[in-house]
């Protein structure tokens, strides 16, 4: 698995984007607020169209401005855990988790994913009844169950207390070491970058 990302877009008056190559393991995109880390993830996922550049994953071009290639979001098979969980409020946790498996094909087993995330007991709950940490674990599970080629994590540890952070960190380590799914993670926290990152890209 390899990433070759080089994207730029003008947003407001500023130029945002990033250029890096990365491989297996967990790649941290590290930098202060406002340098366009989230915009970069959105451009990789296809939610934001770069003005210029390319996104290649394992040699497959997902976006290339020069060649006019722009694979639609829903065909990119990129798991994306947003900074806010974005669980569907009108569906229970189980239906949220299964939403992506509709089109996904064989991926991680449902039981395995809910077991390592520790969310078995939440399946029949409504998203509005979940705590912040629970909602985030469900969001990670939902992205994993859509059978992604790799995972984008946007500040997955922000606004959580110490023990909730520890839970999520262990889940991310499990994804990195046991599921061996490549991850691109955005953070502004050097400690997180140090602990979780196989490599760190500074923006």
């Amino acid at each position, binding site marked *: 698995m390899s990433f070759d990302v080089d994207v730029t877009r003008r947003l407001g008056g500023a130029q945002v984007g990033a250029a890096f190559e990365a491989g297996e393991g967990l790649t941290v995109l590290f930098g202060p607020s406002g340098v366009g880390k989230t915009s970069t993830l959105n451009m990789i*996922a*296809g*939610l934001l169209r770069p003005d210029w550049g390319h996104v290649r994953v394992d040699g497959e071009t997902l976006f290339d401005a020069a060649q006019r290639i722009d694979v*639609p*979001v*829903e*065909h*990119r*098979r*990129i*798991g*994306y855990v*947003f900074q*806010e*969980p*974005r*669980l*569907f*409020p*009108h569906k229970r946790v189980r239906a949220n988790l299964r*939403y*992506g498996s*509709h*089109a*996904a094909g064989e991926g991680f087993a449902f039981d395995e994913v809910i077991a390592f995330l520790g969310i078995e007991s939440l399946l029949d709950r409504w*998203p*509005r009844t*979940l705590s*912040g940490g629970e*909602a985030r674990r469900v969001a990670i599970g*939902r*992205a994993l169950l*859509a059978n992604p080629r790799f995972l984008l994590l946007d500040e997955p540890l922000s606004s959580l207390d110490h023990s909730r952070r520890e839970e999520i960190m262990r889940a991310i380590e499990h994804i990195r070491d046991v599921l061996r799914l490549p991850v691109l993670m955005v953070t502004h926290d050097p400690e997180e970058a140090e602990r979780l990152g196989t490599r760190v890209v500074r923006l």
Partner: protein
Amino acid sequence: MTLTPAEWQIVGLSLKIGLVAIIATLPLAFALAFVLARGRFPGKIVLDALVHLPLVLPPVVTGWLLLLAFAPAGPIGALVQDWFGATVLFRWTGAAIAAGVMALPLMVRAMRLSIEAVDRRLESAAQTLGAGRARVFATITLPLSIPGVLAGCVLGFARSIGEFGATITFVSNVPGQTRTLPLAIYSALQLPDGDAEVLRLALVSVALSLGALIVSELLARRSERGMHVI
């Protein structure tokens, strides 16, 4: 207080016209609401104004315009004559058309607000999970805007039941065909001994309108709760 059989017939006719008007208008109203909520195109402001026109135009003018359009020689009336061999003039179907046109702005307004309130971030989350446009619409956008759609229908229904000016201009005041509650009240007011009938029909009108407003408000509140996104 009990209604006479003739009054029951008037209430039944009003309900039938209101229901048919709303069911027939619903697809158009939703499509317009969606386009106005999400679309970006030149002339949007004009479309918006046209949709709202029946709300501010004197109903008598709306009725007269409908009459021009649906008269046997009119642009739509000729088509209806060709296809169905019938006219909507002086018929309950015409009353339903008038009611639907007058209800349209209220329906579009309520539906548009609820579509605008759907969090677009949920739609992009669904896309990253592999859902194409149609599936995002069917599983996220539509279910989240349903309470507003229903509220719009209830409001439109109440408006239909109360429709007077456009109806009497367009399809006249024909007992059993176009004499709905307001028209019947108007007719009874012309009679020297119609006071009791006016009172009974007016009470039915108040009850129907009040009920519809309460249901619509409850639906709108429910929709706000449902939108709570974490």
